[in-house]
């Protein structure tokens, strides 16, 4: 198509990462408002990642923010969002599966019932998809995790797990792998937000480059997926993975209007158009990856 009318448009965000912290009510309201205003700048199909230290603190914050996600989607029927909650779940006994599922996940899923009804009516994938991303640790019992994933799958929550070097052993459980919608591979034993963001972004860049590898064209000829990373605790906003890891913030959401934020984001990327920082990070992530058996 002759696309001259599509030139010089505003940047389009494909992913937003929010590192949840111990923000107060006012900060939460401000964060939620900022995100609501950013949705109009996001791709029609986008991913939101909320990184929580634990379920009990993270879920209420996510549910609060999710109300605005739902408002946006109800007004904009052409949009689809994947909401990822990245968190650790304490699973020591079978009772923990029931407790966590009934207390946290089930109400979370029920809160988007209106989108499930819409999806069923149109016989199409829902426009709001919830993905619990479970960060594993050395104590994670694969059988208990598989049990939790069964509950997720039965409720149309898409289970994802996040492995690190301490938990690669879980990939030996084929039954567990079959139940997972996706797996992220961390390259250290850390479960810090920086490590998680680095892994998800790196894996994303690699996955996007894979078709190029298969067709033997240039490995990475497209820009990195446009992402914004927000640290809710202090309000700092980062324009990409590399900037986040180097702590080079763009602005602060608790004092800046979204239009200014997006203008700064645009300016940053225009003046760093030849930046290879994220791709370099991806190569480092990949070269340090202890690939599990069979991969």
């Amino acid at each position, binding site marked *: *198509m*002759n*696309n001259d*009318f*599509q030139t010089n*448009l*505003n940047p*389009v*965000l*494909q992913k937003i990462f929010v590192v949840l912290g111990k923000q107060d009510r006012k900060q939460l309201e401000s964060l939620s408002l900022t995100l609501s205003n950013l*949705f*109009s*700048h*996001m*791709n*029609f*199909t986008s991913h939101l990642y909320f990184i929580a230290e634990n379920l009990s603190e993270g879920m209420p914050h996510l549910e609060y923010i999710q109300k605005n996600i739902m408002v946006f989607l109800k007004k*904009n*029927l*052409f*949009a*689809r969002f994947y909401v990822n909650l990245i968190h650790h779940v304490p699973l020591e006994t079978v009772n923990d599966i029931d407790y966590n599922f009934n207390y946290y996940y089930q109400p979370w899923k029920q809160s988007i019932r209106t989108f499930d009804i*819409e999806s*069923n*009516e*149109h*016989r*199409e*994938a829902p*426009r709001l998809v919830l993905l619990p991303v479970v960060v594993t640790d050395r104590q994670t019992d694969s059988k208990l995790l598989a049990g939790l994933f069964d509950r997720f799958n039965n409720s149309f929550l898409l289970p994802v797990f996040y492995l690190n070097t301490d938990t690669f052993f879980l990939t030996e459980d084929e039954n567990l792998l079959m139940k997972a919608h996706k797996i992220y591979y961390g390259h250290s034993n850390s479960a810090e937000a920086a490590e998680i963001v680095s892994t998800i972004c790196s894996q994303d860049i690699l996955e996007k480059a894979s078709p190029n590898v298969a067709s033997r064209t240039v490995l990475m000829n497209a820009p990195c997926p*446009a992402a914004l990373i927000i640290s809710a605790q202090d309000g700092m906003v980062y324009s990409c993975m590399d900037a986040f890891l180097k702590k080079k913030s763009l602005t602060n959401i608790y004092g800046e209007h979204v239009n200014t934020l997006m203008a700064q984001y645009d300016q940053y990327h225009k003046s760093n158009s030849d930046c290879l920082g994220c791709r370099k990070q991806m190569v480092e992530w990949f070269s340090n990856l202890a690939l599990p058996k069979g991969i």
Partner: protein
Amino acid sequence: MNVLLIDINPFSPSLTPISLGYIASFLKSRGFNTRILSLGENTLISRTNLCEIVRRFNPALVGLSAYQRTMLYVNGLAKLIKSLDRDIKLAIGGPQATFMPSSAFSELPDIDYISRSSGEETLLRVARAIKNRTPFSNLLGVSYKDASGEVFDTPGLDAAADLDLYPSPYLDDTFDYSGMSEAIMLTSRGCPHDCIYCYTPNAFKHKVSFHSVDRVIEEIKWIRKKGVKRLWFADPNISLKPARLMEIFNRMLSEGLDMQMWLQTRADLVNPEVMKIMKRSGVSTIAFGLESASERVMAKLGKHISVERVAEAVKLAQSEKIEVELFTIFGLPYETFEDAVKTLEFMKANKVKIMGNTNSQQMQIYFGTHMARHYEAYKIKPLNNKRPAYLSIGSNYETDCMKYKEMIKIQNLWRANSIDRGRRIVS
């Protein structure tokens, strides 16, 4: 006057929107400044940018491609565009629109026209009416809702019998070649057959119209010159006239038009001679419609082709080392779970890779099909009668012979046997 044509499908990558291309070229040739916006799963577009595009281009008419699976998204785009400027007129067209009941207007509050006939001809009349500031006068081939909300249906309109009368979206550079890896071509339209589940024969009144061989070759030469080396022929039955197809391929060979090609046709429209020249010309994949490997089920589909004939065509293609794809559907009338398993087994027995288009899907009961009109006679039971009027039964049904749970079971069985976990390209 500006016309914007939009194709949205968030479930598959953006492909060359060939039908919109034809409409755009035709409208351009009649003096309307027409652009296409193709929004696939890989297209980067935000609400803010879509609003900006509409503001910049300032269309008086927006045409939206409508499919069963994208109706929600079409409705959403219509709402957004109308919210920007109430004066912009909105039309839907395409497979879902042709036979959509006019009662659907009540659930499509922002749509002004439903195109029923040839997109080129109906939209030209709509565009002219809008340009003349009489947006609902002298229309044919559409249903419309006037300013007071009253709905009118106009008589149908025939498309040109000679497709060469429509300008080529390739030759007039309607399409941007910079990101195009594969060109979709439509050298003919329509189908003369009577498959009870298919929309095409009724939409084209069982007639088939063709481009001349010269026009096809001219397009291929231009596409090749632009650096595109893969062709996807979207004709329902490209070998309907075998001599014509042979001529196209012979010309490609004699003129050194080296292309990789995908095409589809009926299994009873190929023979060793046709298959050999396909191979020599660069056909890498051929797709046939098998639908079901149960002769009992096939006999009821109006397809008039035997399972054995399909198997022979598969072998013929394989003997020429042409990759084979088979379109199949489950949940067909009178099909049992065991019949559906036979279809899966057919793939294995005939060494057809279960991936891409060979991944089976449940029958979709679309508006305009024989099945949609007579579903009760085929013991089809819709599962949700509360669906919006713009949606047909689709896949939301079970049959006397296959219950909903069995449909899910056979779908999972296909996925379990699939190389790519069931991702289809053509729907």
